[in-house]
């Protein structure tokens, strides 16, 4: 079993989340979860999940989330109501995204039962679960039921919240307001709109857009098309179109419909063109998100591929050979200089390590990995010597095997990454 400093592992993971390094996050999360489970750090796993899973799901990494949830579930006992409830909740998310509605509803509802066993009751988790359930069950429920749900959700969202920003307040009312409009409860909707309009929102912020959008929708739904058109035109000129695209697309839909109803046909056609261009922009954005970061090959001479390296090292480890894996990272430097830096590092490594480097390769444009046959006492001193010869200070992480605990190459590699990301997270704290 690979020993690890849990706090460093988590700091490193949080750094990846905050810096939107999703590729590294995806692979590190799988490694980290396995390690934390082995060492019984279930609560840390849940803390990681709470932060990482919404991001993973936004990035459409549903299969990874499903795999992670299935990995953790057997280790969580039903007696541990909050943890068990959370795992059911994440399962609900997965099925929600892959459009397995019945399964999603089942898991979300199960999670509610467990949340209610907790002390204190996790009102925010309950609110989010109820919100997703309301969306899933909308088509099979009456208007009155939907309104009840919306009201209850708003209240649960608001319990125990203090120091609320305009963003929090908009978030609390938004679902209830939309439900009121949809169900033509215009008096109730107007009462909420008046509250929202009293908020002071930062200029051009999302919450300001939401409030102005709410006003547009009120006049549109109450068929006051002239006022709605006036307001929505102001929104479309005031806010940048490529931010909050889904809200802007909705505004365009309203503007087009209002223009048509008021028989402003040329304006409606122009708006349609602008809307189509924005829709296309959104599609391009989504395509870019789904593209993987390309892994370059052979940036260093005589390198071995990572896959082959894994095979050779794992064979040797299984036979009791002890290795140290060292990873260098120059991602914090200018992109144009990274390859040169990795080459300089390689020269320094060859000159400093008196025993031959067993394997090495570039992992990507800003990372390289070395496998050397020595233990900790020597590795630290030698890395110091390598760094002393360089005109720059790369980040690095290393991890060694021992005869007592035989990890895999991948575990050594990922633990080395963990130390690098931890170091980056500490650098951010200082700056």
């Amino acid at each position, binding site marked *: 079993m690979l020993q690890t400093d849990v706090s460093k592992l988590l700091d490193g993971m949080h750094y990846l989340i905050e810096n939107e390094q999703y590729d590294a996050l995806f692979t590190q999360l799988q490694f980290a979860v396995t390690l934390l489970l082995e060492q019984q750090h279930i609560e840390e796993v849940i803390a990681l999940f709470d932060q990482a899973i919404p991001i993973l799901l936004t990035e459409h990494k549903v299969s990874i989330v499903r795999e992670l949830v299935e990995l953790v579930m057997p280790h969580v006992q039903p007696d541990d109501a909050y943890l068990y409830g959370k795992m059911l909740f994440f399962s609900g998310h997965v099925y929600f995204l892959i459009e397995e509605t019945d399964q999603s509803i089942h898991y979300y509802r199960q999670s509610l039962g467990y949340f*209610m066993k907790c002390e204190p009751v996790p009102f925010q988790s309950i609110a989010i679960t109820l919100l997703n359930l309301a969306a899933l069950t909308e088509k099979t429920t009456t208007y009155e039921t939907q309104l009840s*749900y919306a009201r*209850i959700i708003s209240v649960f969202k608001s319990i125990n919240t203090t120091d609320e920003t305009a963003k929090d307040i908009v978030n609390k009312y938004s679902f209830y307001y939309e439900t009121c409009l949809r169900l033509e409860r215009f008096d109730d909707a107007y009462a909420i709109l008046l509250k929202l309009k009293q908020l002071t929102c930062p200029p051009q912020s999302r919450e300001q857009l939401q409030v102005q959008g709410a006003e547009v929708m009120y006049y549109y739904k109450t068929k006051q098309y002239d006022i709605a058109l006036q307001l929505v035109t102001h929104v479309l000129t005031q806010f940048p179109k490529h931010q909050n695209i889904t809200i802007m697309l909705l505004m365009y839909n309203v503007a087009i419909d209002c223009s048509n109803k008021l028989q402003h046909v040329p304006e409606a056609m122009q708006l349609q063109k602008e809307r189509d261009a924005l829709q296309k922009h959104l599609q391009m954005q989504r395509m870019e998100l789904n593209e993987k970061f390309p892994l370059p090959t052979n940036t260093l001479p005589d390198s071995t591929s990572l896959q082959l390296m894994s095979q050779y090292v794992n064979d040797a480890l299984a036979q009791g050979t002890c290795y140290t894996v060292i990873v260098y990272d120059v991602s914090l430097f200018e992109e144009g200089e990274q390859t040169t830096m990795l080459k300089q590092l390689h020269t320094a490594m060859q000159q400093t390590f008196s025993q031959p480097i067993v394997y090495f390769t570039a992992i990507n444009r800003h990372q390289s990995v070395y496998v050397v046959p020595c233990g900790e006492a020597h590795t630290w001193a030698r890395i110091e010597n390598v760094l002393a010869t360089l005109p720059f200070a790369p980040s690095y992480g290393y991890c060694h095997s021992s005869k007592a605990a035989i990890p895999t190459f991948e575990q050594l590699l990922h633990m080395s990454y963990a130390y690098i990301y931890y170091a980056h997270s500490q650098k951010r704290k200082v700056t």
Partner: protein
Amino acid sequence: MNLVKSVFSLNDEQFRDVERALSLDNIIAMVRPGYSETPQYIGGFQDFFIFFYYEELPLFDSELTLIYMTRYEIIQAFAKTATVKAMKAMTVGNLEHALLAAVTCTNIYIDIFQNVIRQTLPPEHVKFHETFAYADWQHFFNKQFQKIESYPKLFVQVQSEIIKQFWAYIRTQSDAFERELLKAKQFLQTYVMTEMRLFSS
């Protein structure tokens, strides 16, 4: 959630109110996992909702209180307490409040049954009770059953034992029972006050 027979005599309007409440499946899912679809506990949940929703309770159905005797005793035990009466002051006429109060009280009963009563019952009684948890107990009193047994002796014996243990718990563990009721009241109060803060003009 499907309506089950109530221990109260409901008129058409009251029947529709209960149906409307039971249509909020997502809220009823807040009942303890595994119990929100068991007729025995759905019935108890319904009874609690009716108690909390109507200022003046409908009359008990004398036949059904004999059949669903456990549910009848439970609602009586809860309704007698000052804390539950205080909760009712916040729930009368408000569907969502009455639903949430019913959820918390049903959960309290389920916990008492699982953690206390179940441990004291003979294993064969536990098995009987759980075997028929999904059945409508009115079947024990119909003509078809009466051909097998003129009187459902074991059924009545098991229910009587449960009721006896339940009342014993309330007598001997009154502090623990009151603590749970106070938590339920606090949950409801927090909800009601937050709602007032959020939706007052």
